[in-house]
């Protein structure tokens, strides 16, 4: 799966990198869908590290495509979850006992990486120490600044808030704490005048 090139943007917009092996006591890897490919690329750089790795993988629409190859890396722990939400209790339990020297690697969609990064930050790991690599869908998690509700998997601008129904335009302004971009009412000054939705990045 080719790596998407995000256009240059404002300072609060996250910029993702490429996963690299780092010295550490343990390696926690959380990925969804095509993010598995980033983990496989990481393994190509250093297979030994996987002996101390805990992989949490949410296949989503990719089904079985990556499962066997990830298992073949022989990680110390391997979990396949039906959704990110279902894996959160496990992630929190693992982090609560973790020690300094744990390396964290996140790969896949922005939504997964943003939320998993938050869990690691809440456990005491600075976000600058957490590695991220984007793969797969470019859909965004959007917070409606008006009702505070989060709309998942947004691919168009403008879009409709799934909670309060306002028409919102997509901003690049991003909050790490909320793991979401900001959506603001697009027709406040001219109610009803809502442009045709355009796909993101087109």
């Amino acid at each position, binding site marked *: 799966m080719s790596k998407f090139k995000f256009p240059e943007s404002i300072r609060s917009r996250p910029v993702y990198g490429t996963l690299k092996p780092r010295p550490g006591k343990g390696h926690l890897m959380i990925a969804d869908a095509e993010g598995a490919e980033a983990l496989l690329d990481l393994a190509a750089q250093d297979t030994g590290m996987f002996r101390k790795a805990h992989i949490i993988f949410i296949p989503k629409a990719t089904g079985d495509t990556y499962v066997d190859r990830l298992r073949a890396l022989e990680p110390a722990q391997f979990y396949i979850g039906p959704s990110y939400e279902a894996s959160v209790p496990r992630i929190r339990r693992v982090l609560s006992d973790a020690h300094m020297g744990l390396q964290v690697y996140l790969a896949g969609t922005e939504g997964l990486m943003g939320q998993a990064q938050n869990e690691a930050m809440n456990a005491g790991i600075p976000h600058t120490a957490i590695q991220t690599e984007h793969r797969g869908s470019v859909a965004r998690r959007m917070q409606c600044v008006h009702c505070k509700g989060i709309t998942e998997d947004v691919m168009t601008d403008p879009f409709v808030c799934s909670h309060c129904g306002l028409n919102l335009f997509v901003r690049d302004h991003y909050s790490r704490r909320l793991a979401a971009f900001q959506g603001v*009412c697009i027709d406040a000054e001219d109610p009803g005048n809502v442009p045709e939705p355009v796909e993101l990045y087109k």
Partner: protein
Amino acid sequence: MTIQFNKETFRDDYSFRNSDRAIKRFPFPFHEDSYMYSVNMEQHRGGPAGSVFEMRFDVDEHYVSEMEDRALVLAEDPLRCQSLPHMTLAGWDTLELIMVSKSEDYPDLFELHRDGDNWRWINKPMGIDHSFTFLDETTLPCGPLEYITRQAQGDFAVLDQRGDMLYMDAGMVTTQADWSLDFDIGMDFFEWHAPVPLAHEMGIFKRALKFLLNIQQGAPARRLNWTMTVNPLLDTSPENYHKWGVQKTTLTPENIGAKQHLRVELQTFYRLPRSNALLFPIRCYLIAFQDLVTIPKWGRRLHRVIRDLPEELATYKGFIDNRPMMLDYLSQFDDGLPTSPGVWPDLDTEPPLQK
């Protein structure tokens, strides 16, 4: 000093009015006939008697009504005041700074009695007389930052300083020019300023950050910022934008003098002692165009500044659509005469309108 406090609203019927005194002491931000961003910092160490710069935390005729408006905003949306857990000490530093400053600068209005950590705070305009234990949150009705900023005009951002960077880790934000504390809390200096056009490329924020990182105890600084608001609405938050945005379209040539307001922020910067955090008060002053132009120099200058402002700035500050109507109105008050440098009204030397 006795201040006559207005009974006025900043919403619904907008009964807000500036007295003559308030007009003359308004912090007009333009020292020349054009405007561009700069790191326009200076020391915050008093100013001309009666000016908004004289006291550490200026109290004016709008005090009581502004605090009532704040209480309304918070009742509707408690997320306007937040403090990340490690910022409670900074909240106490802020409480001490405001209580000490106000009781010393306005002894007729505020009193602070301290016996070790046993403090008694009297706020006469708001009818508050409260005893509590300093550094013990259980003796206050809410966190120290919220407690004291419910009694101080303007917004307050509290910035944690870590590793040569500032982080917006606490704040009371109910009179903001369109940014969300709930969204921005936790961001660093460059991130929360990300949406501002042009300034990043100019290196403004890099220089400003270096300056702010080195602000020390006992040496506060200040600067002015400005924007435009239709109606004297304090709560121009993104949260409520879907309600207030449309007010921008209600301007007409007949009402623009009364409804269009210049909104100036007096921003100050204090190093807090126990937490080493940086307190960033953002004090908001509003003036209707028709009041502003009664000062001839300001009328001339404002027209020129707005006329020549780069489009990106007028867009970012939210008045690009109303600019033509604003210029139609303001041009009546620009007779082309030269204006004195500096922000002061200079009523003695600047001639009245020659039109």
